[in-house]
C-alpha cells in the first residue's frame, strides 16, 4: 500500500482486497476477551479534527488504541486552531511532536492532500473526510460490510441515493465499489448530481422506484443542508417532496430483493432520507457499519504504519500472513 490514504482512487483492486482481508482479522480480534494487539506499540497517531465528528474520531481512536498506538486527539475547538493557526503551522507542530500518522478530518476538500504533499509533515496521512471530496475509510467499511453479508462484491448492484453532490461518502464509494467490480448507480434529483458525473465509472438515475428492484445494496445519504446553503440553496422544493421522491420508507423497501441491504453512513435524518422503521429493520446494517468502522481503521493504520521505515524494533505481531497468532497473548 502507499504511504497515505487520501482517496479511494489511490487503492488498486489488490490494495482494497488486502485492506478488506486485514479488516476481517481485525474484526476477529474484536470478538476476543482482550481486544488489543501490540502491533503499533510506540507509534503515535494524531487525530486532527477540524470538523466536529464524534463518531469518526472515536472510531479512529478506538482503532489506534486497540493496536496499542499512542493517540493524540487534536480538535479544532479549544485548541490553537480556533485562534486562527493555519493548517501549515498545526502540521509543523505535529511533525515536531513526532506523529507517525495523522488522521485528518477537514471541511476543505483537498486538505489531506495539502498535508501529505506540501512537505510539512513526514507522517502517513489518512483522510477521515475532506469537504465534499472523499471519505475513503467509510467506503472501505461499507465494502467490508457488503462483503460480510453478500460475499464477493464483483457484480453486486449498489444504489447510492440522495445528496451525491455534497457527499464525500458517495465519491469514495463510487470509486472503491467500482474498483471492486460492483455496478454502482447514483440516484438523485438532477440538482444533486455533480456536473461531469457522466465521466464517473457509474450509472445514474433520477428514479428511485425504478432502481430499487435491481439493487442488492441501497446506500442512503444524508441531505447536507449546511453545504447546500453555501452553494446557493434551492436544490429541491421542500423536505416533503424530497422525502416523497427519494426517501426510503417501508413501501419502497418492499420493492427491494429479499436479501438486499440498507445502509447509511450516519448521522441519519430519520423521516427525511430514511424512515425510522427502515433504519431499524432487519435489512438495515447501519449499526454494524459502525462496528466494522473500527476494524477497517485498524487495518488501514496497521497497513500504513507497520511496514514503514520508521517502525520500532519490534516485529509487528499481527502480520497478515500469520492469522493464527493471538495478538492478545503477544501483548501479555
Amino acid at each position, binding site marked *: 500500500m502507499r504511504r497515505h490514504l487520501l482517496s479511494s482512487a489511490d487503492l488498486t483492486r489488490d490494495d482494497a482486497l488486502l485492506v478488506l482481508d486485514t479488516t476481517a482479522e481485525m474484526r476477529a480480534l474484536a470478538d476476543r476477551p482482550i481486544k488489543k494487539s501490540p502491533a503499533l506499540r510506540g507509534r503515535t497517531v494524531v487525530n486532527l479534527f477540524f470538523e466536529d465528528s464524534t463518531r469518526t474520531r472515536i472510531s479512529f481512536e478506538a482503532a489506534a488504541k486497540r493496536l496499542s498506538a499512542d493517540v493524540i486527539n487534536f480538535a479544532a475547538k479549544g485548541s490553537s486552531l480556533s485562534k486562527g493557526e*493555519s*493548517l*501549515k503551522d498545526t502540521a509543523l507542530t505535529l511533525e515536531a511532536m513526532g506523529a507517525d500518522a495523522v488522521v485528518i478530518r*477537514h*471541511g*476543505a*476538500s*483537498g*486538505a489531506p*492532500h*495539502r498535508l501529505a*504533499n*506540501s512537505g510539512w509533515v513526514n507522517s502517513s496521512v489518512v483522510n477521515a473526510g*475532506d*469537504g*465534499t*471530496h*472523499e471519505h475513503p475509510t467509510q467506503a472501505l467499511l461499507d465494502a467490508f460490510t457488503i462483503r460480510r453479508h453478500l460475499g464477493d462484491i464483483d457484480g453486486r448492484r449498489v444504489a447510492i441515493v440522495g445528496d451525491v453532490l455534497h457527499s*464525500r461518502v458517495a*465519491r469514495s464509494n463510487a470509486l472503491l465499489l467500482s474498483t471492486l467490480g460492483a455496478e454502482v448507480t447514483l440516484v438523485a434529483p438532477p440538482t444533486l448530481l*455533480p*456536473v*461531469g*458525473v457522466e*465521466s*464517473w465509472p457509474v450509472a445514474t438515475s433520477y428514479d428511485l422506484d425504478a432502481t430499487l428492484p435491481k439493487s442488492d445494496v441501497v446506500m442512503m445519504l444524508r441531505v447536507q443542508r449546511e453545504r447546500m446553503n*453555501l*452553494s*446557493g440553496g434551492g436544490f429541491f422544493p421542500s423536505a416533503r417532496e424530497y422525502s416523497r421522491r427519494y426517501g426510503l420508507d417501508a413501501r419502497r423497501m418492499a420493492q427491494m430483493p429479499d436479501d438486499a441491504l440498507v445502509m447509511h453512513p450516519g448521522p441519519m435524518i430519520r423521516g427525511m432520507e430514511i424512515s425510522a422503521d427502515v433504519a431499524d429493520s432487519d435489512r438495515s446494517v447501519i449499526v454494524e457499519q459502525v462496528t466494522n468502522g473500527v476494524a477497517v481503521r485498524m487495518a488501514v493504520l496497521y497497513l500504513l504504519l507497520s511496514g514503514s521505515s520508521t517502525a520500532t524494533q519490534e516485529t509487528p505481531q499481527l502480520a497478515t500472513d500469520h492469522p493464527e497468532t493471538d495478538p492478545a497473548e503477544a501483548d501479555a
Partner: protein
Amino acid sequence: MTTYLIRQADLLGGAPTDLLVRDGVIADIGDIGSSAGAEELDATDLVALPGLVDLHTHLREPGREDAETVLTGTQAAARGGFTAVHAMANTDPVADTAGVVEQVWRLGREGGYCDVQPVGAVTVGLSGQQLAELGAMADSAAGVRVFSDDGRCVSDAVLMRRALEYVKAFDGVVAQHAQEPRLTEDAQMNEGELSGVLGLRGWPAVAEEAVIARDCLLAAHVGSRLHICHVSTAGSVEIVRWAKGRGCNVTAEVTPHHLLLTDELATTYDPVYKVNPPLRTRADVEALREGLADGTIDCVATDHAPHPSEDKACEWSAAAFGMVGLETALSVVQQTMVDTGLLDWAGVADRFSRRPAEIGRLGSQGRGLQIGAPANIVLIDPAARRPVDPGDTASLSRNTPFEGLELPGRVVHTFLRGVPTVADGKLQ
C-alpha cells in the same frame, strides 16, 4: 539625459535596425552611422518591441503593502518589459475617490519605473450599490479613464447601465469583471468533470458568458464603450466575436495564465493555481489563443495579483485567488502565441502595447517604434530559455503558477521615455 544608440535590434522581429534614443523620444531609426555623445548598445539578436502596457495590475498599495507596493510592483513590471500599468481599484481604502487615485498615481511617478495609471472603482467601496464619483476621478491629476470593480462584478443591470452611460462624458470605459454572483457562490474552480471529482464547488462558464452577453447588449443599447476583463472561456470569445460583429463597442483582454494553464492543475489542490476567473479546459485555452490571434480579444493583460505566502500555504478553499504575472507575461505570450505561429512580434506589439494603451486612453504609451514617439522600448532575447524561479522577482510576492516551467524569452533592456529601467536584465 543620456543618448542611446541601439545597434542592430530586430525591429518587431524584422530586419536588424539601429534606433537612436534622445531626450526621451525615438530620434532616428535606420542605418545610423554614429551619433556624437551617444552611448552605444549592442542589440544583435534582440527583438525590439514598444514598451508593454498592462490594463490589469494589482499593486495592493494602499492597504496591503505586505503583498506589494507601487514601487515593487512597478519594478516587477519594468523587469517584465512594461512601461505602463493600470493599477486596479480594489485597494484598502478602495480607489473610489480622487484622493486615492491621485496618491497611487503620484507613487508611480515618484518611483519612475513605469507609468502607473490608476483604475477607479465603479461603485463606492466596490459594494455594487452606488456609483463612485467617477467624474472627480476623471478630472483628478490621475486622469482616470478606466473604471472597474474588478474582483466583484457590477451585477446589477441598472447600475451597469448607468455606469456605461455616465463615463461617456469623459470618454471613459467600464471594465467588467464578468461573474454572475448567484451562480458562483463560494465557487472554487472551473465547473466541469474535475470539480465534481475533486469536491470543489464549481464556477461555471455560463456565469461569465451570461454577464458578457448582457453587458454587450447594454453597451450597444446606450452606445457606450465596454471592456471585458480576463475573458476565460470559449463561449465568451464567441459572444465577444458576435458582439463586435454587430458593431458593439466592446474590447476584451486575456491573461497569460489563461493562455497556458488548465484546470487539471487543481488536482494538486495547490492554491497557487487558484485564480478568479478559474483556469479552464484545454478547449477554452485553444479558443482564447485563437481569439487573441484574430483580434476578437484585443489585448493581453496580466491580472498580476500578488499575495503573501500565508494566503497560499493553506488549504484550497481558504486560499486567496490570484497569481503574480508581470515578469512572466511576455514569456508566456511568446510560448503560446509566437512560438506557435499564431502571432508575429508585430502582433504582440499590437496586443500588448498599442491596443491596451488605446483602450486606457494613454496618449504617451503604445505609440509604437517610430520616429518622434516616446522612447518606450523593450529589448528581448527570444532565444533565451529559463526555468521560472519564484524567488527571482522584484515583486514582494512569490505566487507564480509557472514555477519550474521552462519558458522562452528574456527581457534584456527596458526604456521608459528614454531612461533605462532595466539594463542587461538588471533593474536600474
